[in-house]
């Protein structure tokens, strides 16, 4: 924590390190790519203005918290204008469109890691993930389509998440 504002270079470095993760977080909350960009911009303006009040050790959590507050404020403004947000599931097309392909290499590396991790899953777990994310099917529908009990579909999803967590953490 310092008394003076962070230097532009420091904010740039924080942006390069965290913007991609924060953007994904915002997409999860707002489910709208345009609003995500707006919230991300507002977040890093706050970092520029008030980032010096956060400790280095807790900076990442502080940035995410600011982002969440920006997202909630944006959502309230939209809802006041009659627009309903956060009540839609993530759209796979929006996910692809929102992929920030022009981002720094580290962002693409993270996505590549995730794609590799998905490819390494057993095919039946990949199927459940695909049906859930890209086909927007409920677990009951997935179970019915695969001809397995609901518990099996849920277990496959949990196993997939467990493996992905291990893979991404490593």
């Amino acid at each position, binding site marked *: 924590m310092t008394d003076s504002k962070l230097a532009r270079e420091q904010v740039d470095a924080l942006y390069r390190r965290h913007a991609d993760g924060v953007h994904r977080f915002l997409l999860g909350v707002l489910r709208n790519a345009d609003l995500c960009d707006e919230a991300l911009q507002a977040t890093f303006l706050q970092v520029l203005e008030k980032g010096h009040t956060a400790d280095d050790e807790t900076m990442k959590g502080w940035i995410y918290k600011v982002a969440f507050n920006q997202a909630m404020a944006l959502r309230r403004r939209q809802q006041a204008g009659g627009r309903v947000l956060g009540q839609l599931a993530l759209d796979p097309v929006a996910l692809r469109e*929102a992929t920030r392909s022009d981002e720094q290499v580290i962002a693409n590396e993270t996505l590549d890691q995730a*794609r590799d991790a998905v*490819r390494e899953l057993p095919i039946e777990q990949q199927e459940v993930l695909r049906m859930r994310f890209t086909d927007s099917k409920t677990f009951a529908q997935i179970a019915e389509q695969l001809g397995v009990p609901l518990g099996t579909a849920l277990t496959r999803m949990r196993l997939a998440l467990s493996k992905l967590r291990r893979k991404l953490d490593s």
Partner: protein
Amino acid sequence: MSHEHNGNAQFEQGVDLDVLALRYVTNELTEDELGAFEARLAEDQLARESVSRMVLLGTAVSLEGVSLEAPFAEGEPGELVASTPQHAADSTVTFTWFGGWHLAAAAGLFVAIGLVAYLNRSDAETTSPGEIAGTEQPLEDEAQDLIASYLAFGDLPDAAREEAGLDTSLDPFENSTLEGAGDEVTLDIGGEAPPWMVMALAK
């Protein structure tokens, strides 16, 4: 031993959180659960990162959607992997459509139509509106022939495919892969025929 047990318990709690975050981003939480989870997001960095991770996973799965398909039969979504040397090494775009091969056929169709238009155009340096009107019929005939070929055989003549730079030896109903020098680009259009293709084939 106890340390390992704690680590496992912590890991399982993390997976539970991921499941919750997944249900959050896919809008499956009840109103009460939603309120509780968003209150947690305001305070819990692990929950925030879990949401970010689930969106990452969703993006990865969406981009991998094509290759997740089991070997497909005719008419099912498939993958077309085309070489595009002009693209950067890490650039990938994924296109999925009925069997993937149809995309190549569509490309051939439109290249052929374009070629006919070009040949007609090159007959004269200037073209009057009347002359343009005069070229409509041969163009339409050519297009109709190609569409008829497509509808009859689910395919285009080899010549049209070759004009599109496609490998005519590939089996249309296998996972079509065009090999060549350059970078790999996978194209995904989400399992639906694009509107322009529907319009073209509906004529």
